């Protein structure tokens, strides 16, 4: 029982992430707006936007709608409230804005749409429309600056709504966590490999190679889940994204590890040589996965130098499932690797007894 705590923990966490990850609903949001002719409006005219919501309750509770324009790079916003809101059903409504003829800016600006509902809290659609002030710059008295919008708080337990992701955001618990677990497994395997190389002991080599096998399978699973995710968000199973290509490369490096192992029949020699290669492969993988992708543009979140876990993409509800998911996948990986290791060790011992 004492040795089995991690297996029990893995199963409990796994059940938790499947149930919580699948059942917690996505928070309310705006999928998009349809505007009559063009998304650009001229100051002084009015526009009617048909808002398509997601998981929203427009028929119950009071609705408010705003257009907000950021004039400078600082956080000061100019807002204008809708003069007519017509709710069609829970997920649809029509809002009409009349843009004042004088504007506080003199070039075409994008305006974000804010929808506030008593039940759902507020939702934002960035760059919903473009406002062309036709050069009339004035104080823009009808636009309200930095006004307290009195938005309602969002309801409690919801995964964040992200426009293209929508329901696929749940894949964070699989795709991202499996990658994390893979790194942990590979690091452990590199340590065991170093021990195998130093002591020339096949036992360490069995540990290292079984953990690496499971990490490799996790890598394939990470690619498969990522591929599916890419199909539903970016539109293709494989894109020319730097992270994907570097990952494919790392997988090839580790595939070569298994080929190397199979070509050396003697266990002790194999322990040493493949141990050395594993350490070499692990270190060669680090720039491929952690350095080069950060220096180039990528479709993945956190491109161009930022780590992937910005405050906007991972909120507390997601963390509540995401962190246990990393632990669960890691423990599950070690569990399978342990079984494989024991199989290899038994095989090795049987080989000696039968001689």
């Amino acid at each position, binding site marked *: 029982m004492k040795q089995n705590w991690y297996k029990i923990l893995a199963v409990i966490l796994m059940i938790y992430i499947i149930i919580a990850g699948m059942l917690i609903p996505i928070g309310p949001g705006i999928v998009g707006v349809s505007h009559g002719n063009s998304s650009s409006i001229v100051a002084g005219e009015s526009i009617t936007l048909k808002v398509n919501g997601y998981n929203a309750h427009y028929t119950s509770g009071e609705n408010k709608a705003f257009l907000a324009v950021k004039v400078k790079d600082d956080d000061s916003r100019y807002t204008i409230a809708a003069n007519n809101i017509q709710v069609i059903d829970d997920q649809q409504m029509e809002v009409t804005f009349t843009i004042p003829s004088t504007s506080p800016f003199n070039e075409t600006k994008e305006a974000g749409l804010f929808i506030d509902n008593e039940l759902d809290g507020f939702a934002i659609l960035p760059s919903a429309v473009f406002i062309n002030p036709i050069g009339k710059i004035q104080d823009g008295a009808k636009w309200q600056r930095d006004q307290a919008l009195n938005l309602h708080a969002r309801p409690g337990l919801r995964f964040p709504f992200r426009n293209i992701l929508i329901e696929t955001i749940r894949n964070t618990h699989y795709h991202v966590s499996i990658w994390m677990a893979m790194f942990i497994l590979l690091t452990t395997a590199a340590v065991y490999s170093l021990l195998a190389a*130093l002591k020339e002991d096949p036992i360490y080599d069995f540990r290292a190679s079984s953990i690496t096998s499971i990490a490799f399978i996790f890598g394939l699973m990470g690619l498969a889940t990522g591929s599916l995710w890419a199909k539903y968000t970016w539109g293709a199973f494989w894109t020319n994204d730097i992270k994907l290509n570097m990952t494919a*490369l790392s997988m*090839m490096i580790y595939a*070569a590890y298994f080929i190397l192992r199979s070509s*050396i029949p003697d266990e002790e020699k194999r322990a040493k040589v493949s141990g050395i290669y594993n350490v070499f492969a692990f270190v060669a993988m680090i*720039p491929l996965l952690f*350095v*080069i992708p950060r220096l180039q543009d990528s479709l993945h979140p956190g491109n161009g130098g930022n780590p992937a876990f910005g405050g906007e993409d991972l909120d507390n509800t997601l963390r509540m499932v995401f962190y246990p998911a990393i632990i669960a996948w890691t423990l599950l990986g070690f569990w399978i690797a342990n079984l494989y290791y024991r199989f290899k060790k038994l095989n090795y011992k049987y080989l000696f007894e039968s001689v």
Partner: protein
Amino acid sequence: MLGQIFQLIKKDFTIDFRQGFALTSVFLFAVTTVFMCYKIFGDLQGQAWNAVFWIIFLFAALNAILRSFVQESGGRELYYFSLLNPIAVLLSKIIYNTLFLFVLGTLTFLVMALFTGNSVREIPLFFMTLSLGSMGLSIAFTFVTAIGSKSNNNATLIAILAFPISLGIMLLLIKLSADALGLINDTSLQTDVIMLLAINAVLLGLSIILFPLLWKN
């Protein structure tokens, strides 16, 4: 140790010149491949020039370095082991291979310039890329050859081990050389060069740490 490295480089150099076929076969490989590509493409410019040059360089480099540990027979290895510092053996191979690859790359460049005309606009940048590439490929391939020579079917295995490891370096080299050819305008030139140097340094450090383990057999 410096004396040992120097003596070993001198020894490799002498052997390669005495058995002329080793050197000439690699150079002949490069020249015939360039000629064949020239006949296939007719006119090699820009992107195609870049691709052909680096592919020829990669395969010629692999052919050249394959010899470095495989050619040492069992008896000679034992003799080295009793006599020499393993790090000196490794460093001498790496330095010799770096020089060899640089000469090979320069020769390939000259032959390609002869057949197709010079497409390289920034010669200094191109030769800096070539020298960094020679260094990187030499470090990676030499170490992988050392690993592969411990297994049974080494020539195929070394190719399988070497290509994935060298691909990261190759991608950076191709980018830098595309910049030298004027195909792209690389805004992060300095970062790329530093990154290439960093990868080379990491691989070199790792080889120096791990090679003594591999050596005592």
